């Protein structure tokens, strides 16, 4: 292992690899900053470039671009209220109130620092787990995936502020619309109205863009100005944000762990990680009601988890050749292009490459945050651009971002359709984050429950890990109530 680590280190320091990282890093950050363009698109765009590259450099190139997207996206989420990538949607919930309070510098500083730590944490988890990965992944079958997704749903009420009934209403609506399109087991397309676009259901990118970007653009076009940082200099705010993260190490580590676990398990869907981390942070907080009103923990938790999940997602990709996310599926394709065969024997034959990827992951997460810190003085100016110039520019990015994922005009139209939904949500206090979380988790719950019942019958709930998950779920549901009652008694 040590030999492999040294060899991995020397491999990582090759000029070709450094060049690959240096060129992919800004690309990944840019794709993160621009709403609608996500890690998946970044990788798809970059894949043709790896044909000429040396094997390891090619992988480093793609992994870098993919891993830093959510770091860039956090800045857009806070400054403009538009998630740069779907994984940053949870950051908007508290990021925007913080911005409105003139604390955008603090929020960005905290988000970037949390991203870096989360990313390094994810890489470390990967490193520690490398030798025991197989049993870990095999332990999480359809039954366990189902219960994990269900656990995610119990957090619906806890993402964001406002009335719980309205939050759950939005969540249930999100779950319902996620069932449009092919049912996973019978293959019957549901509620598709003979409209081919709906066969695969609604798409995530138009939904996320519509819910978050359009209402923000409408508000800007209505003449609202973006609040600029008040009081302290932005530089001081950035440092304050950084300090806020180091003051909450427990929160950062817990959120990173949530990200890693969700990343490792292929079925749950990496997009859920930041929501779950957010909800967990809220439920374990002494004053949950302040979440959603602009609390720094609400930015730290999702940002730590969405960078940590990338490390987790690499796990099944390397060990089984099973991609943990759609971005990883593309990375898997790149392995083949480079003549490498991921799968059961990959780590035995290429341990140094596996470790090298871990190193890259850790390093680029830190580099990405540093680069963003350095760019902040320029990026922060975006909020002082008058809306009459900003709106058409952002609208272009949002529309072409939606269009570019599949090259389909329908996605652009549906961005507006969901934009109307988003506007209604903002106006009447329905929770957009809950809607999105329900949308992402609904299909996983349905799919894996049906598969579990098919394979094991209803008895699957008595599998050991399932029992543990059920216990955790019950604890998570009732702990906040008991906790607050205890606190009240003490007070």
């Amino acid at each position: 292992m040590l030999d492999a680590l040294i060899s991995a280190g020397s491999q990582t320091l090759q000029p070709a690899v450094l060049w690959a990282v240096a060129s992919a890093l800004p690309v990944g950050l840019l794709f993160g900053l621009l709403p609608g363009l996500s890690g998946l698109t970044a990788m798809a765009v970059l894949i043709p470039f790896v044909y000429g590259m040396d094997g390891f450099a090619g992988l480093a190139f793609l992994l870098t671009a993919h891993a830093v997207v959510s770091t860039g996206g956090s800045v857009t989420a806070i400054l403009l209220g538009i998630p740069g990538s779907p994984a940053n949607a949870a950051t908007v919930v508290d990021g925007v109130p913080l911005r409105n309070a003139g604390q955008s510098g603090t929020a960005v500083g905290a988000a970037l620092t949390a991203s870096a730590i989360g990313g390094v944490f994810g890489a470390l988890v990967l490193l520690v787990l490398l030798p025991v990965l197989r049993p870990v992944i095999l332990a999480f079958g359809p039954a366990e995936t189902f219960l994990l997704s269900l656990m995610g749903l119990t957090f619906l009420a806890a993402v964001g502020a406002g009335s719980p009934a309205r939050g759950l209403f939005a969540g249930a609506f999100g779950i319902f619309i996620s069932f449009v399109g092919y049912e996973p087991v019978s293959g019957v397309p549901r509620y598709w109205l003979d409209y081919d676009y709906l066969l695969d259901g609604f798409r995530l990118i138009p939904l996320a863009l519509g819910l978050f970007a359009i209402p923000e653009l409408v508000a800007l076009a209505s003449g609202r100005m973006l609040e600029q940082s008040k009081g302290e200099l932005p530089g001081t705010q950035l440092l304050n944000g950084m300090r806020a993260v180091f003051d909450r190490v427990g929160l950062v580590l817990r959120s990173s762990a949530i990200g890693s676990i969700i990343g490792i398990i292929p079925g749950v869907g990496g997009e859920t990680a930041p929501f779950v981390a957010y909800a967990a942070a809220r439920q374990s907080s002494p004053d949950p009601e302040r979440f959603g009103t602009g609390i720094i923990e609400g930015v730290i938790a999702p940002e730590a988890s969405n960078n940590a999940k990338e490390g987790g997602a690499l796990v099944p990709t390397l060990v089984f050749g099973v991609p943990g996310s759609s971005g990883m599926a593309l990375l898997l394709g790149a392995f083949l292009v480079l003549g490498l065969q991921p799968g059961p024997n990959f780590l035995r034959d290429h341990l140094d490459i596996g470790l090298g990827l871990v190193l890259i992951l850790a390093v680029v997460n830190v580099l990405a945050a540093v680069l963003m810190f350095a760019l902040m003085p320029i990026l922060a100016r975006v909020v002082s651009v008058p809306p009459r110039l900003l709106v058409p520019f952002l609208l272009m990015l949002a529309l072409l971002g939606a269009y570019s994922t599949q090259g389909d005009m329908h996605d652009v139209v549906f961005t507006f359709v969901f934009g109307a939904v988003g506007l209604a949500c903002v106006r009447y206090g329905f929770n957009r984050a809950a809607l999105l979380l329900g949308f992402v988790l609904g299909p996983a719950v349905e799919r894996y429950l049906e598969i579990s019942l098919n394979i094991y019958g209803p008895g699957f709930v008595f599998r050991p890990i399932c029992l543990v998950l059920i216990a955790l779920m019950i604890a998570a549901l009732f702990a906040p109530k008991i906790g607050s009652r205890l606190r009240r008694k003490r007070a």
Partner: protein
Amino acid sequence: MIRTDRLLICGTILAVLAMVVWGMTIGGYPANANVFPAIAAGGVLIFGLLALREPPPEGGAGDVTWSAMLWLVAVLPLVYLLGFRIALPLYAFIFAIARRTSPLVSLLLAVGVAVVVEALFVRVLGLRLSWGWLAGAFLR
């Protein structure tokens, strides 16, 4: 006075229930395909009814105007007519100039938008952007 949020909640509940009932009857979906939509619809119904009894929330975005919405939606027909590559710069120009931006700055904005569309989306991302119905007819 009928509250708009109540109308929205009732409309959503009715639409969702109608779809589920349709799937079970005329749609003829197999039983397992109806279970989860029915559960989700149940959630929509219960939490919707609870939300109906609540007082209206304070307008979180009260400063939103209808004209702003119309302005945004207007980009869509423009894109269908002229294609992204013409529509987006043109839209940017009109949007800016209609808000008392100087012609020069508006033009610069339009050029900036055009450059990003061409450089990032056409060159780098290799998107194939159609020219739209109207412009496409002339360019052929």
